[in-house]
């Protein structure tokens, strides 16, 4: 177990074009960190640099207080779980799990106890003699995790491990990974593009976009106070509504005759162009009222527990989440009040959250 420090890490493949523009994060001992972002944002590259599979162009990575920039992956005391499992197809489950131990010269008895213990945790006992191709996707993924566990490494690195599984299995494995982390308490870094995985698994999450860290924080903190338009749009489903407008007399004119008052602390240094963000779940249906949004309902998506009401305010599309049966009829006029304490204000030009 160890803490991992990433300082000013940058990566480029061809001179001058940076894939990762300087990442500074320190990950505490035993923490479960999720790196989340759209594909191509550099999250896997960052993970692979921690693993030692990619060279570090600039900056420093240290694991357990030791700088590992020039340390071979095998000597970094980390274990990695790959998206496509990367099990050795010709070896049995037992051999797959014990391969790393055998190379490191562990005694037969020691290997046996470690593998059996991991197999017990992961409920792989009956499959130890099988080949990977005789296992289901979920079982293969468990073997891949078993291969990591037996090593008892300082940190687990997960590279989108659930992406190849079907939806139901993904939920199940998510819970298992959570349970595993509680039992073992090993520092874990988990890369995913799925914000649900990020929200449910992380102690803290790192939201990345285009090689830049947009925000680091606990999932609920990120949800409650996204640091930028990107984070606000990426975390939460369906995505946050954005209403761009210009500031006049301390209010934002978002079009369609709607004016949203800026909170007092923001009044003084608000830029001219402000984007107001409101999550679909924070639009509440209401009766007549002054500050209510009214718009004609264009589409309804009924999801069962909830229904999504789609419409437009001015030219901007808007989504509201209502209780399943409470959806208004298509074509009727919907009326929603904004929860003032749930509004988010961003500088339209820089995309940054406006802070008091």
């Amino acid at each position, binding site marked *: 177990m160890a803490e991992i420090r990433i300082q000013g890490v940058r990566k480029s493949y061809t001179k001058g074009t940076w894939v990762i523009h300087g990442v500074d994060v320190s990950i505490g001992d035993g923490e479960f960190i999720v790196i989340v972002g759209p594909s191509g944002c550099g999250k896997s590259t960052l993970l692979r640099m921690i*693993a*030692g*599979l990619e060279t570090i162009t600039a900056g420093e990575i240290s694991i357990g207080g030791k700088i590992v920039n020039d340390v*071979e*992956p*095998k000597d970094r005391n*980390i*274990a*990695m779980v*790959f*998206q*496509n499992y*990367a*099990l*050795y*197809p*010709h070896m049995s489950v037992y051999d797959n799990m014990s*391969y*790393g131990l055998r*190379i*490191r010269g562990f005694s037969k008895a020691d290997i046996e106890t470690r593998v059996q213990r991991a197999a017990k945790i992961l409920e792989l006992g009956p499959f130890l003699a099988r080949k990977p*191709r005789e296992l289901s996707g979920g079982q293969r993924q468990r073997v891949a995790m078993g*291969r990591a566990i037996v090593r008892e490494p300082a940190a687990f690195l997960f590279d989108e491990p659930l992406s190849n599984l079907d939806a139901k299995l993904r939920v199940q494995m998510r819970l298992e990974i959570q349970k595993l982390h509680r039992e073992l308490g090993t520092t874990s870094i988990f890369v995913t593009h799925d914000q649900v995985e990020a929200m449910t698994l992380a102690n803290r999450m790192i939201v990345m976009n285009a090689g830049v860290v947009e925000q680091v924080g606990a999932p609920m903190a990120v949800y409650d106070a996204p640091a930028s338009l990107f984070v606000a749009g990426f975390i939460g489903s369906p995505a946050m509504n954005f209403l761009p407008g210009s500031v006049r007399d301390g209010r934002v004119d978002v079009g369609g005759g709607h004016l949203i008052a800026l909170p007092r602390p923001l009044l003084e240094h608000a830029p001219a162009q402000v984007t107001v963000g409101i999550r679909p779940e924070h639009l509440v249906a209401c009766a007549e009222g002054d500050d209510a949004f009214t718009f004609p309902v264009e589409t309804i998506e009924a999801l069962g527990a909830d229904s999504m009401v789609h419409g437009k305010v001015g030219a901007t599309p808007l989504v509201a989440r209502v209780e399943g049966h409470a959806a208004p009829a298509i074509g009727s006029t919907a009326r929603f009040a904004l929860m003032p304490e749930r509004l988010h204000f961003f500088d339209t030009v820089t995309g940054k959250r406006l802070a008091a």
Partner: protein
Amino acid sequence: MVENRPVLVFLRHAVLLAGVACVAFPLWVTFVASTLTLEQILTVPMPLVPGDQFWANYSQVLTAGSTRGAAAPVGQMMANSLVMALAIALGKIAISLVSAFAIVYFRFPLRNFFFWMIFVTLMLPVEVRIIPTFKVVSDLGILNSYLGLTLPLIASATATFLFRQFFMTIPDELAEAARIDGAGPMRFFWDVVVPLSKTSMAALFVIQFIYGWNQYLWPLLITTDESMYTVVIGIKRMIVGGDALTEWNLVMATAMLALLPPAAVVILMQKWFVKGLVETEK
């Protein structure tokens, strides 16, 4: 076929049977001739049912060889052919496996250049480079030796290319997982790459064994000592002068014997051969 008309069925079978007959008939004539006496073969028309000289002909070629022409026993020639074919097949597999591994998994200067150099040698089969190669082998003093028979034929661009293509289908993550598990390159080679290449190796073995066994021009050039003759050369050397002088019964028996090992390899390794060419175990 969806249609099921009797005429078409008949036609289909007739065409197929005719094809089989075309291929099998010469083989049958060879077999029949190998069981007759020379006089019987020379009668016109030659009988098409096996005679009673099977044991006599076969035991003579295996132990003593022909009385005219080459006199080395065919048993010895078969052994030579076997050594040559095995050495070529195994040597080609070993060298190609290692060179493909280097080309796919290591980054070194001029990697692509070397790959293309290997590839270009496809254009230079033995027949094209035979004189310089003969000169080299002769200068090395390995004429009339197994080394001389096999060494110039071992390098193989085809096999290197085949292994390269196969290695490129092995997911990169496997190599990365092995790196994290602590396996060095050679450990990865022995523990992962070689076991995964088993079926490709088997397919190549079949192809290269037959290639080695059927070598004609090269052994013809560099073997002058009868004890180093391969069976293919042996057949040629048994044929002397005019028709009447050649002991056709013995030549045919030798031809039948020469057929057996490649056929056996193909039949025994058929399953692996097909597997190696169509499927990869991943």
